[in-house]
């Protein structure tokens, strides 16, 4: 047996250098006694064995060191021996960190997890009591805590990051962490009676704890799984737990048994006031009034799931109205038409054809987004004939107020919305059609169709056709201008 001494229970640094030398000398894992406290030395009466002075390139993943350093803080007496065994096996390629079925790896991950949990619980359950104000005006606090493992040095820096402008003391049976004027020092452990015995704010905290508890849903197991009883003695609120549990059944039963009381008279007063101040529906005699009314439209079921009605956009004096299918994900969120990918493509193509978006009225045949959820995304679904027909009410009102000379319908849905009946896109595309007095209809595809084409060559061709349709529209617009000018 080789006896190796470490300076303390958590002296990972020495373990690391010793383990390296032992590995260099190819000392088998079972041959070493790791001693962390002076009493062990007396017990065995042995001198530490001189270590061989050889060095070696240790081949272990960096992640092992991170895990090992935390596992070394576990109260498991075997930890340094098991860590050496792991180091030995990893170095000799006898196991791998990624083999989660290896008993040594399982041990390591379990210890690491227990230590991390213990640190987390210390962050959660330390309760400071105020003790005064320092001569530099810093508030002073103190806390007593009893962790399960040797974690003080790992857990305390969290409090420095969180409370750097307070002075505080955290005392455990093993360590005292003192943070004064921005300086952290550790000394030996202490006793609970070194710390302030009370703090008036604890009464407020207990009141909060008791009031936030819902007696109608008692689940003590869920509580003790996360806040085991061994922590209770240092938690000021925990002393209330037995009485809260004891009274919960009666309290819940009383709530259920209570007969409904007459309504608070204040409710009726509020109701009357609301009725008096409720906005009256305006007659639909301006585009603004139409838009306001459309916001609360429930003519079809699409309003049940969409975020908002997406209205048309553009000057009322526009001579060109472009009609699309329906808003998409981004339009639904922003409440504006043609701002998503298809809108961007439309913008580029309009610019290419010399049509100003700012003088055009852009709208959709259907004003609500229809979709099916797929994980984190929404997949567009095609509006049906009923939905298009219902929404035609709004489209017709828009046409009435804008009075466009030319309407460009993009896609079959738009065509149906404008015509009021189904029409095949291929029958109408490239045609100019007088659909009402002084109103000409042109038809093209929806830009979203172009975006969906998988084949790049095909997409190029179709994009060119789309642009040609827009150019035809621009030309017609210009002809009309000349004719009227």
């Amino acid at each position, binding site marked *: 047996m080789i006896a190796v001494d470490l300076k303390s229970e958590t002296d990972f640094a020495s373990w690391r250098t010793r383990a390296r030398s032992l590995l260099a000398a190819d000392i088998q894992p079972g041959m070493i006694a790791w001693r962390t406290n002076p009493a062990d030395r007396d017990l065995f009466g042995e001198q530490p064995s001189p270590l061989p002075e050889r060095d070696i390139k240790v081949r272990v993943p960096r992640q092992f060191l991170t895990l090992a350093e935390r596992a070394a803080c576990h109260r498991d007496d075997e930890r340094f021996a098991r860590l050496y065994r792991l180091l030995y096996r990893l170095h000799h390629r006898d196991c791998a960190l990624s083999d989660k079925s290896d008993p040594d790896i399982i041990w390591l991950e379990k210890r690491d997890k227990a230590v991390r949990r213990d640190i987390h619980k210390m962050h959660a359950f330390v*309760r400071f009591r105020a003790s005064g104000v320092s001569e530099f005006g810093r508030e002073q606090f103190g806390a007593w805590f009893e962790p399960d493992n040797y974690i003080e040095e790992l857990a305390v820096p969290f409090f420095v990051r969180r*409370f750097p402008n307070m002075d505080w003391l955290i005392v455990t049976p093993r360590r005292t962490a003192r943070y004064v004027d921005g300086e952290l020092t550790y000394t030996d452990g202490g006793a609970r009676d070194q710390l302030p015995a009370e*703090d008036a704010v604890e009464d407020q*905290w207990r009141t*909060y704890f008791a*009031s*936030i508890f819902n007696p109608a849903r008692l*689940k003590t197991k869920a509580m003790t799984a996360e806040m085991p009883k061994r922590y209770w003695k240092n*938690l000021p609120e925990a002393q209330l737990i037995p009485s*809260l549990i004891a009274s919960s059944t009666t309290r819940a039963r009383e709530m259920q048994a209570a007969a409904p009381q007459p309504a608070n008279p204040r409710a009726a007063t509020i109701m009357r006031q609301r009725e008096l101040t409720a906005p009256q529906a305006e007659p639909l005699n301006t585009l603004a009034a139409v838009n306001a009314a459309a916001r609360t439209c429930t003519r079809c079921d699409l309003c049940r799931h969409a975020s908002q009605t997406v209205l048309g956009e553009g000057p009322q004096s526009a001579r060109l109205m472009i009609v699309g299918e329906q808003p998409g994900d981004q339009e639904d969120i922003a409440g504006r038409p043609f701002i998503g990918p298809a809108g961007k493509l439309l913008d580029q193509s309009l610019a290419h054809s010399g049509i100003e978006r700012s003088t055009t009225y852009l709208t959709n045949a259907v004003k609500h987004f229809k979709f099916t959820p797929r994980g984190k995304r929404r997949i567009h679904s095609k509006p049906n004939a009923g939905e298009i027909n219902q929404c035609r009410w709004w489209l017709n009102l828009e046409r009435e107020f804008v009075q466009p000379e030319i309407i460009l319908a993009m896609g079959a849905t738009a065509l149906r919305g404008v015509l009021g009946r189904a029409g095949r896109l291929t029958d109408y595309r490239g045609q100019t059609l007088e659909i009402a007095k002084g109103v000409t209809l042109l038809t093209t595809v929806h830009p979203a169709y172009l975006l969906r084409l998988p084949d790049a060559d095909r997409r190029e061709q179709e994009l060119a056709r789309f642009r040609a349709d827009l150019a035809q529209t621009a030309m017609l617009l210009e002809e009309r201008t000349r004719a009227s000018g």
Partner: protein
Amino acid sequence: MASRTLIQKLAVLADAAKYDASCASSGTQKRNSLGKDGVGSTEGMGICHAYAPDGRCISLLKILLTNFCIFDCRYCINRSSSNVERARFTVEEVVSLTLDFYKRNYIEGLFLSSGIIRSPDYTMEQLVEVARRLRIDHNYRGYIHLKTIAEADPLLIEKAGRYADRLSVNIELPTETSLTQYAPEKSGPTIRKAMADVRSNIETTTEKAPDRGKPPPRPPRFAPGGQSTQMIVGADASIDRDILSTSARLYSSYKLRRVYYSAYSPIPDASSDLPPVRPPLQREHRLYQADWMMRFYGYEHAEIAGADTGGMLDLDIDPKLAWSLRNRAYFPVDVNRASKEQLLRVPGFGPGTVKKILSSRRHARLRLDHLSRISRSISKSLPFITAADWTPGALTDSDRLRARYTPEPEQMSLFA
């Protein structure tokens, strides 16, 4: 009315806040107070500082600014027609309570909500003012969750998001019909519009800088902890399928971090429209499991609550097991070959176990003894997997398979 002490107000306004299930303090940006004035830090992981006997974590000081309310939502303890005791905090009282609790390490931060007084805008302004004072006047860097009042001006939502880590607008009830019936002053479109505004603000402030040239000055972060919502379960007649499809739509539409399900619970002075019943806690639990299946296991909402159960989740077995029993043809799955997606559908395997299986099978053909070390509940998985030394044979298709997982029917008590 005699003026109440702070502690009396706290009792009323914490009691009024307890029906909001969320207490999360995780997932926001990392920050601390080193080298700066003020107090507080957030480190990614949330911390639950205490647990109440209802099993719920206490991470935040969860209170209402006031429980006076001009709305009359039938399920709510604070509805205008209720006779509960009312109280109102001043902005300063909330600020100092938060700081006092925070400095004693009782909490990760504040979750502030409110009944609606005067008008939605007035109320929202007050909530924003609490957050502003904490952040600006006190350099407070702890967590802040603000309840967003859907009816308030979008500009106030924008302001709220500058100070808060998380914003939440409650959807309250799963369907439009229920909302009209039980929360007459609220409306689905208003709620969804507010959620859309939050998403839109989050996305505009986190848009990536252009590839070339200097990045533009970064806009202040908006609600870095995202948004969440809450749905009350069991107050109306909605079935689980409706609830899950509403959740699926909300997740896909507004990039919510979480949908919280809150079993409708008896409240003092309940409305006669909603007589107090025992809260459906098991149903709530199953809905959370189903929600997890959608978010972490790759299930579509339509797969989960089956038509054969009337669109309700089975209360006796978990919804993933229920799916597996309905879809036996999918199994057995070979642990040594199956994809991650397939493994995630095996009862008893969670994302952690699946990751370990994928990692370990590079070293050896996995046998049952490997698996029993990797998974704590391997016996639950056995009928649904094959391993190097295991095949379930006829077990997968056995008529009695469901019985393996359901508790024995309770014996009638002799003394009942």
